[in-house]
């Protein structure tokens, strides 16, 4: 993955993408046990095009010039199926802003915090998100005060309370 991250860092340096951070299962694996996943989710701020539209076409064009071919919604970069996801709401935008700087081996990168990943899972709410979120609590990697401030800020209280009642055995 280090080589793929080096390519993504190059995209950022070249201005093809704005700030980026890793989310999804690969980010979650930083906090809990390894998770089977097919791809590397990279959340990005997209530079606005001259027309003001946010588009990922320049990323794909640039990567194709570098010899990396898009397939479906992925680009295979150094063996990883990388999916570039523009921040799509206030929560993912904040997650990207507050992503932590880490090194993967010797390559710098950014990864979402455990609390932002948890809030995104609360929001998305698929069965696999709930299962993964339970693991975050099982491995005690969540600062619940921080998580609940995020939940509050992004109006996810109803979904959070539903999750808590169902999976954390808490009575309201």
């Amino acid at each position, binding site marked *: 993955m280090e080589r793929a991250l080096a390519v993504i860092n190059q995209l950022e340096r070249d201005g093809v993408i704005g700030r980026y951070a890793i989310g999804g299962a690969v980010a979650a694996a930083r906090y809990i046990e390894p998770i*089977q996943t097919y791809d590397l989710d990279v959340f990005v701020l997209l530079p606005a095009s001259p027309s003001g539209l*946010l*588009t990922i076409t320049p990323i794909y064009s640039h990567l194709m010039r570098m010899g990396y071919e898009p397939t479906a919604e992925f680009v295979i970069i150094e063996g990883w199926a990388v999916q570039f996801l523009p921040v*799509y709401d206030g929560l993912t935008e904040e997650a990207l802003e507050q992503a932590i700087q880490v090194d*993967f081996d010797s390559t710098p990168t950014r990864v979402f915090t455990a609390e932002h990943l948890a809030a995104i899972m609360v929001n998305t709410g698929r069965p696999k998100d709930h299962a993964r979120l339970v693991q975050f609590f099982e491995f005690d990697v969540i600062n619940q005060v921080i998580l609940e401030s995020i939940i509050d800020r992004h109006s996810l209280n109803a979904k959070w309370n539903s999750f808590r009642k169902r999976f954390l055995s808490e009575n309201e």
Partner: protein
Amino acid sequence: MQQFYPDISDLLEAKARRRRELAALTWEEKVRIIQRMQQLLPKDAWQIRSVQKSNWQLGKSHLVSDVVSGSII
């Protein structure tokens, strides 16, 4: 006749311990495990997955209008 079942609490505890050990590995070590898991999958497994993921994202993303290779990004 009373049925006796084996006590598997030791097995369950060993599994739980193994999970804790896996969670305590470095991120790099965990990603290498993920990569090994990927190698065990059929070669086109991620492509099948991509269709499922696209369908999910149809309802999620409203910022991006690009279409690449026939799939909405």
